[in-house]
């Protein structure tokens, strides 16, 4: 057709919606194109040439026709089947779902944002490899993703006046740790270990993060979720369904 342009990009499938009888609309986070929504025809038929490549969490090399509001996928080659590896581990899969939904909420259509692509690909890759507890990987992804979006929390220096930490209070609206003079009423008072863990998750210091105990992890997860929900007005639905009960690292050793 005249005026239709074809493009190619590396992309992560964020989510899919059924369309009609056998098609799907896929939301893709492209490395150079940013977020796009595209129609994948016939993808729900079991003999579809796309197979499972256009499912959430898969990284693909896609070729699409640009459309007015929706593009159309013409080709999809697998670059990394993270989604397929993750789906076999329920806890990891719920963590991946929360990553994908957050990435969707933090990005705008057709606005290139390579940093979010790279961060998400890294998070999914780590979940697929089962390197660390999936709940910790999710929290680390979340604090970094909101940072890239411009809402970097602080877990050390005071978010109000910059006074060096450690501090004892945490305030969502202020942007993280607050000193005793900046501390607004109603601030949380996490344990010092929780601040240490959050700081480690923000910079990817896994040797510190992996030594944390369950109670610290729970408190950190609660603060991270609250922080993300505070910045994303309608909230991230899948965060409520993240399976944080199982020690996934231990579960995996038994099953793989």
């Amino acid at each position, binding site marked *: 057709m005249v005026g239709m342009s074809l493009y190619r990009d590396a992309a992560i499938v964020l*989510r899919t919606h059924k369309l*009609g*009888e*056998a098609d799907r609309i896929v939301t893709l986070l492209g490395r150079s194109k940013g977020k796009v929504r595209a129609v994948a025809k016939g*993808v*729900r*038929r*079991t*003999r*579809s040439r*796309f*197979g*499972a*490549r*256009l*499912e*959430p*969490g898969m990284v693909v090399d896609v070729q699409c026709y640009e459309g007015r509001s929706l593009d159309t996928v013409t080709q999809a080659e697998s670059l990394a089947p993270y*989604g*397929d590896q993750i*789906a*076999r*581990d*329920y806890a990891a*899969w*719920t963590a991946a*779902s*929360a990553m*994908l*939904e957050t990435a969707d909420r933090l990005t705008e259509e057709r606005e290139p944002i390579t940093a979010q692509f790279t961060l998400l690909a890294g998070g999914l890759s780590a979940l697929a490899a089962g390197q660390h507890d999936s709940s910790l990987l999710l929290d680390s992804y979340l604090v970094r993703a909101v940072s890239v979006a411009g809402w970097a929390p602080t877990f050390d220096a005071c978010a109000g006046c910059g006074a060096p930490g450690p501090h004892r209070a945490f305030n969502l609206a202020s942007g993280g740790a607050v000193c005793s003079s900046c501390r607004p009423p109603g601030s949380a008072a996490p344990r010092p270990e929780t601040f240490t863990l959050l700081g480690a998750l923000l910079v990817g210091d896994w040797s510190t993060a992996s030594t944390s105990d369950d109670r610290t992890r729970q408190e950190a997860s609660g603060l991270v979720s609250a922080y993300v929900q505070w910045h994303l007005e309608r909230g991230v*639905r*899948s965060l*409520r*369904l*993240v399976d944080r009960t*199982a020690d996934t690292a231990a*579960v995996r050793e038994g*099953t793989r």
Partner: protein
Amino acid sequence: MVQDLIDELGRLPGIGPKSAQRIAFHLLQADPADVQRLTEVLTVVREKVRFCETCFNVAEAEQCRICLDPRREATQICVVEDPKDVIALERTREFRGRYHVLGGAISPIDGVGPDDLRITELMRRLADGAVEEIILATNPNLTGEATAAYLARLLSTMGLRVTRLASGLPVGGDLEYADEVTLGRAFEGRRLLDA
């Protein structure tokens, strides 16, 4: 009025505006007795068909035809997402046990968690110890795979044989689109899950 009919038909799955128009004009020219029969069937289906109290398949009574059939083995339960999947699997004539319809798959992004499916009802069916094998026949796509992983973990402590349809099933699609031969083979080659 004719346009109303065309509009209503066009809202059915798989029927585009052209087909809707064709069906509408077919009905207008058809024998009134034929149209009457169609009207009656639609009314009866709407009033009488409901969900089986045991397995949540479509049923015309409190229980579905399969749950009421004494020849169906009570030792095997095949877990599927939708009633449409029961029809697809029945076509293979491979399975002689009973079903359990979850009512979907776990999908956190869509806000669907384990509590939104008929999982408690499944666990209740296992309480008397009569069931020996659970066959997880959720869709061969990622939500189906993750739902199977969740169930396998939940069932792992119950001393049951938990199997999954063979991985030879083409991935990415919906079970209802699989042909009988492929589905039948997937059934025969189902693998044991060691959760």
